[in-house]
């Protein structure tokens, strides 16, 4: 059964384009006096968050509510999870309550896959970030933002810079953007470049400055201090000097190039405040687009008799 969104690797170019086109139509209801569609009336969407999140959870909640679904928010803090309840028992509880979709963020890579395939629940599972593995809806909203700024992704050069090792956003984006025809270059210090990156559908570099002048867009990744169990770089000042995007570096980008960041930002570390607030930055636009893209995903997974996206073997290739 194809009914989950676990990884961007499962999306064909046609699937991804359908999601982005649907999102483009749904974005228009944000301008209407009544920002609501009756499409998912009577369906229940559960936000199951084992990790802290502001924009992803609020974005999914807004998206589900704009489609008239009922939303149940469930975070590990303040629930039985803090008393030691397992993912399985939580899942069985949700199943008993009749959830139609579970939006899950889990600290373990593969958490969403486990939830979808263990046979605990029958509902659709949407991965909202699992460990350092994937965050497909973030990649979709990045692709949407790029498409609306650059017209098309075919042949565009996108740089993804920073803590690639711990970044699920980078993994999802590499797969999705290459599926859509873009050329992705990863830039990170050797300590933050994942093992076996040679096998990914992208090129990579340890040096930011030679890459910048060729890019149509640069995506700055957050330095994930909470996942860093050892010293990956000597000092923050050194990291910022070599891999941070500041005004002087931004000047090396072509005139049309945009600056992205999935948020939350460490201002002054990977991106300077001046760059984050500049006209080239799409950071707040990305948040607004997130709602439209998540509405599209929920509609395409839950709206019909069967999902319109996904593959038979979802999440299989990792």
């Amino acid at each position, binding site marked *: 059964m194809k009914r989950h969104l676990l990884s961007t690797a499962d999306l064909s170019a046609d699937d991804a384009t359908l999601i982005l*086109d649907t999102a483009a*139509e*749904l974005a228009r209801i944000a301008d209407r006096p009544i920002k*609501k*569609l*009756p499409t998912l009336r009577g369906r229940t969407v559960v936000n199951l968050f084992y990790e802290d999140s502001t924009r992803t959870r609020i974005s999914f909640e807004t998206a589900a509510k704009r489609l008239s679904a009922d939303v149940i928010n469930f975070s590990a803090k303040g629930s039985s999870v803090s008393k030691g309840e397992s993912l399985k028992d939580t899942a069985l509880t949700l199943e008993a309550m009749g959830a139609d979709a579970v939006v899950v963020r889990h600290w373990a890579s593969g958490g969403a896959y486990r939830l979808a395939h263990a046979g605990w629940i029958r509902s659709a599972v949407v991965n909202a970030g699992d460990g350092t593995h994937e965050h497909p809806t973030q990649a979709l909203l990045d692709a949407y933002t790029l498409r609306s700024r650059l017209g098309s992704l075919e042949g565009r050069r996108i740089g993804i810079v920073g803590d690639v090792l711990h970044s699920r956003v980078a993994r999802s984006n590499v797969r999705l953007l290459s599926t859509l025809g873009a050329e992705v270059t990863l830039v990170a210090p050797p300590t933050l470049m994942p093992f076996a990156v040679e096998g990914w559908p992208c090129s990579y570099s340890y040096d930011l400055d030679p890459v910048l002048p060729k890019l149509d867009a640069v995506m700055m990744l957050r330095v994930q201090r909470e996942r860093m169990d050892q010293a990956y770089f000597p000092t923050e000042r050194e990291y910022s000097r070599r891999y941070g995007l500041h005004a002087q570096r931004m000047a090396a980008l072509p005139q049309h190039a945009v600056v992205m960041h999935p948020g939350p930002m460490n201002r002054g570390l990977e991106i300077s405040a001046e760059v984050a607030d500049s006209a080239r930055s799409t950071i707040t636009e990305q948040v607004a687009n997130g709602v439209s893209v998540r509405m599209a995903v929920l509609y395409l997974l839950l*709206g019909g008799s069967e*999902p*319109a996206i996904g593959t038979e073997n979802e999440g299989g290739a990792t």
Partner: protein
Amino acid sequence: MTDGTETTVSPAAPASAAQAAMRAVLDASAVSRALTRIAHEILERTQGADDAVLLGIPTRGAHLATRLGGQIAAVEGLELPIGTLDVTMYRDDLRLRPARAIKRTEIPSGGVDGKLVVLVDDVLFSGRTIRAALDALGDIGRPRAVQLAVLVDRGHRELPIRADYVGKNLPTAQRETVQVRLAETDGQDAVLLGVKGAGAR
């Protein structure tokens, strides 16, 4: 978008087999005459159509709305606001089929509040598309009145809905299908009648 009769004919599809089983009930000139008459009826019934807004239901209803707007402009020199209204998200049969692609909704800049909205569609059948359109319209604004113009009324209503302007009343059997072809989407204007399963999906 017509209830149960929508047959998407893509240019790449082998249309010859489908066409053989379909009989033309209106040819290009008959379609054109029907639209001219509807344009005149709209002007007559609304006494000049001063506050009218034409909203076509994609895909073919939207093209018909554009053509009606052109006819009215030719007759009266009056450029009516023309838009499109997609009803996919308001349909009552969404859960019976896989999720469908959404089409464009384009409301003219003047909005619909206090206006006379004329909904335009190609075929009127069960009436469920129009019910969905009325719901969609209610979320966009509050028109003074809503009227309905269709190129073909094929009967078999399942809801208390009727058209104000009809190009052609076409008595049909349930097992028959009606297909409207327009130059914009299908290369030529025609209304075809066929039997379900023979060519039509």
